[in-house]
């Protein structure tokens, strides 16, 4: 990947990575850090990265950065505080906002596979490549996540 292609990737995918990280972390500063870290790592390897696969490479890098961040924050207890803040701030019963709240109920891996599926439209095989899981594992995680989300929404009786 050339420098020009790398800069094109910045224009094309930095927003996607940011949204992906923000949904995960629910913390804008941390999400920005993830974006910076992701692109910095990709730049280090840009000569060996094929531009055709840069999006996948970016999400793989971002995913691992998020997992690391989540582990670190979980140890310090910040992630729980963030979740509480998010839950109390959202009083709007729009489905998407409730879904965002419901996302906090999912495990990190479930969040990742669902967001990769919904936001980026990746198929199971692509998600498996990004998350280093098997395709069947991805499918199981997605199905379980859908059930959890469904239960959360159904409980609030939002969908008629």
């Amino acid at each position: 990947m050339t420098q020009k292609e790398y800069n094109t990737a910045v224009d094309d995918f930095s927003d996607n990575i940011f949204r992906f990280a923000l949904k995960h972390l629910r913390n804008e500063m941390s999400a920005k850090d993830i974006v910076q870290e992701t692109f910095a790592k990709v730049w280090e390897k840009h000569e060996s990265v094929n531009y055709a696969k840069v999006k996948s490479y970016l999400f793989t890098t971002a995913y691992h950065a998020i997992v690391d961040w989540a582990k670190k924050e979980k140890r310090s207890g910040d992630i729980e505080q963030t979740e509480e803040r998010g839950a109390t701030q959202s009083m709007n019963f729009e489905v998407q906002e409730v879904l965002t709240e419901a996302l906090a109920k999912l495990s990190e891996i479930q969040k990742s596979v669902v967001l990769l599926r919904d936001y980026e439209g990746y198929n199971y095989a692509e998600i498996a490549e990004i998350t280093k899981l098997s395709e069947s594992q991805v499918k199981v995680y997605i199905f379980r996540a859908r059930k959890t989300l469904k239960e959360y929404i159904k409980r609030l009786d939002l969908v008629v």
Partner: protein
Amino acid sequence: MGKISVFNYEAYYLDFLEGNLNGEDTALFLEFLEANPDLKMDNDVLPSYSEESIILDSETKEKLKHHTEDEVIVSTNIEHFLIAQAEGILSEEKTEEVDKYVAKNNGLTKEKAVFNAVYFKADTSIVFADKQSLRRRKIIFAPSWRLMPYYAAAASVILILLVWYSNTDIEITQKQYFTEDNKKTIPGNKEEPFSLEDNVAKNETQVEGNRHDYISTPLDEQLDNSLTIANHSPIDDRDKKQNNNSSNVAENTEKEPIKKREYKKKSGVNSLENFELQPTVGEQTMATIEPKNEQNNDYASVHFGDVQNPIEQITSFIAKKTKTTVDYRRQKKTKTKPSSIFVKIGKFEFSRKKH
């Protein structure tokens, strides 16, 4: 009974709970507990390890099951097919089958709607504002002709500083250079008084071969003439004459040094007292130094004409643009030549050599 006591009953207790006691020991242990009711533990305190107590609920079990499209749709697997339909991974045939099943069971209509609703939509209003910080740029040096004199000046300063700091025993001026050099090489300058007589005496003992660099002066010619014997025949060629005179001088110097001195003093015309003495520096004349193969530290004798300029294109380019003489020459140390460097920027010149 005697073998179970308050000191070892706990081990028996554990074996009893785990079912490891034989019939006899079990009877003995129960008898012991009857006798010591205060040691009997309540059932809720004791952990239960019965296999029957560890069970998974049916919902969890259901989640572990894998389903295939071939399966017949029933109440226990309809949820899976509803999710699969929402995911878009069902075949058309199976999708129709699911729809028919939902239509037959009104309660599933809402389930289906909810499963279709649990999809995230990216909020495109959320953007990463600081894209500029992620971009990478090539650093391209675009020289501005207007600034070229400044570039040249900066380059010159850097070059001078590099040379300056790379040379620990740098000599700045010619005067200092000679002063240092003479102190090292001329013993007469330090301790021995430099007298006219001594100098003459030393000149007389110069070896014959030293004459080849000697430039003849009127005084020399007179001296030479006075020293030559009658068999001397004049030769028009000056070089030949000098060579012959030199050899004669050498011969006479070796054979009759005392007579020669007397002869000089007696001679009214050729007496040394009547002539200004040539500025010789005792043994340190060029003639005496070179045969001894000593280092030539004469600053002025370092010539850079034959030294290559490794950055000729750059210096000529800078010189052209700044309309200033810019030169840089460098000679690496060889067996016959010392390492030397020469820098010229306008009127400023700097050079050094290092043995």
